[in-house]
């Protein structure tokens, strides 16, 4: 399996009843297998942009091409089954075991029970949870980090060509988050999905991204590799967003000189 390419052409989205576009005039090309982070402050439109891909957010202008074909050409429900989706609150279904959560999309796609069981175990191995110990647990019996691993496993279970993640590690402490970030990179490299990852944490975006998309007030402020963005921030907004924390820098300095 490999990732799909994505192309946004003049994409805009406006929620019903809103008086302005949540995002507008988005032009963006993402290569197959690329890991792209969407960064910006609250309300910048990063989550909306992510959600236009699986049509959870209404496209009100432009179009999105997935491997060259218009995302509006197929039924939204069908489309979503081919796109992995993981969110911050994990969205795990409390009344289902870990195995059934991971098997949700394969079962929607009517895989056989044997195929689903096999895939569930493989996904648990992939996210480093022992299948024997975790298969039959309920979500409430998992730690935050474990739940998020299951969320990732569920998003990837049916071998999606595109993976959408909306602040999946937002609720985790820094150490667990760091571990999961590194593991995620490895996992995504293994499965080859093209990944869009929303975060407001610039360090997270620098750590994960092949390319970073900086959003501000519904428009793209800059697109570039982490190095390009750090070296040549195109606007003062980008520069400020990625500026190292001065207070911490000062403290470090002070500590070094004591």
């Amino acid at each position: 399996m490999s990732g799909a390419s994505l192309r946004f052409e003049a994409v805009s989205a406006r929620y019903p009843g809103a008086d302005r576009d949540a995002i507008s005039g988005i032009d963006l090309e993402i290569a197959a297998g690329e890991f792209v982070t969407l960064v910006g402050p609250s309300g910048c439109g990063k989550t909306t942009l992510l959600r236009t891909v699986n049509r959870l957010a209404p496209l009100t202008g432009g179009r999105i091409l997935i491997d060259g074909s218009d995302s509006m050409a197929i039924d939204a429900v069908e489309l979503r089954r081919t796109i992995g989706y993981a969110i911050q609150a994990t969205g795990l279904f409390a009344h289902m075991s870990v195995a059934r959560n991971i098997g949700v999309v394969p079962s929607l796609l009517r895989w056989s029970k044997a195929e689903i069981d096999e895939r569930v175990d493989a996904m648990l191995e992939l996210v480093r949870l022992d299948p024997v110990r975790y298969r039959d647990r309920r979500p409430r019996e998992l730690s935050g980090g474990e739940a998020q691993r299951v969320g990732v496993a569920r998003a990837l279970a049916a071998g999606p060509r595109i993976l959408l993640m909306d602040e999946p590690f937002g609720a985790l402490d820094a150490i667990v988050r760091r571990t999961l970030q590194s593991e995620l990179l490895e996992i995504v490299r293994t499965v080859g999905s093209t990944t869009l990852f929303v975060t407001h944490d610039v360090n997270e975006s620098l750590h994960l991204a092949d390319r970073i998309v900086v959003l501000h007030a519904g428009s793209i402020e800059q697109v570039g590799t982490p190095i390009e963005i750090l070296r040549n921030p195109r606007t003062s907004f980008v520069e400020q967003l990625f500026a190292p924390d001065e207070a911490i820098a000062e403290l470090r300095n002070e500590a070094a000189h004591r």
Partner: protein
Amino acid sequence: MSYILAHPERVAALLAAHVAIVASALLLAIAIALPLGIRAARAKNGAPLLLGTLSAIYTIPSLALLAILVQLVGLGTLPIFIALVAYAQFMLVRNVVAGLRSIDPAITDAAAGLGMSARQSLLRVELPLALPVILAGVRVAAVAMIALATLGAYVGAGGLGTLIFTGLALHHTDEIVAGALASAALAIGVDVLLRGVERLVSS
């Protein structure tokens, strides 16, 4: 107590009739309340008209409602059956709405994002998650209906109320107590049973 021991067959037959009318009314009431509650839960404004109407029905004194129904459909089982179904709506619909509304929006977002249709999301995720709250409504309704159904005897529907009303007419305290005890025991038994079911589904 002595009446029940002296006439076990009569009490058992009346109990069976009581259970039959309550159970059938409860099943129909659930069949009506589920779709109503699902719609109300999805309505953006919270369906105040529907819930308002149901709560208005709920506040009509039961004897008055029964009197009106007798005028409309005559004596027998039918008026009490309709009254039971109507009274239960408020308790059932209210809990269906509460159960569905209590679900974290992130859960329904995940269900949609993973590719469930609205129907699949409802059947596989939302209703199972709302089930404990819905069942609590069923339990409260069932217990209230058991009490209310004793009035059925007054309009010729039979059931445990028969003991109470004939007892009152003939000044047989024993018979009144027997009817009261039997219906109370039934209510408590059903309550305990349904609490057990709730515990089973929410574990």
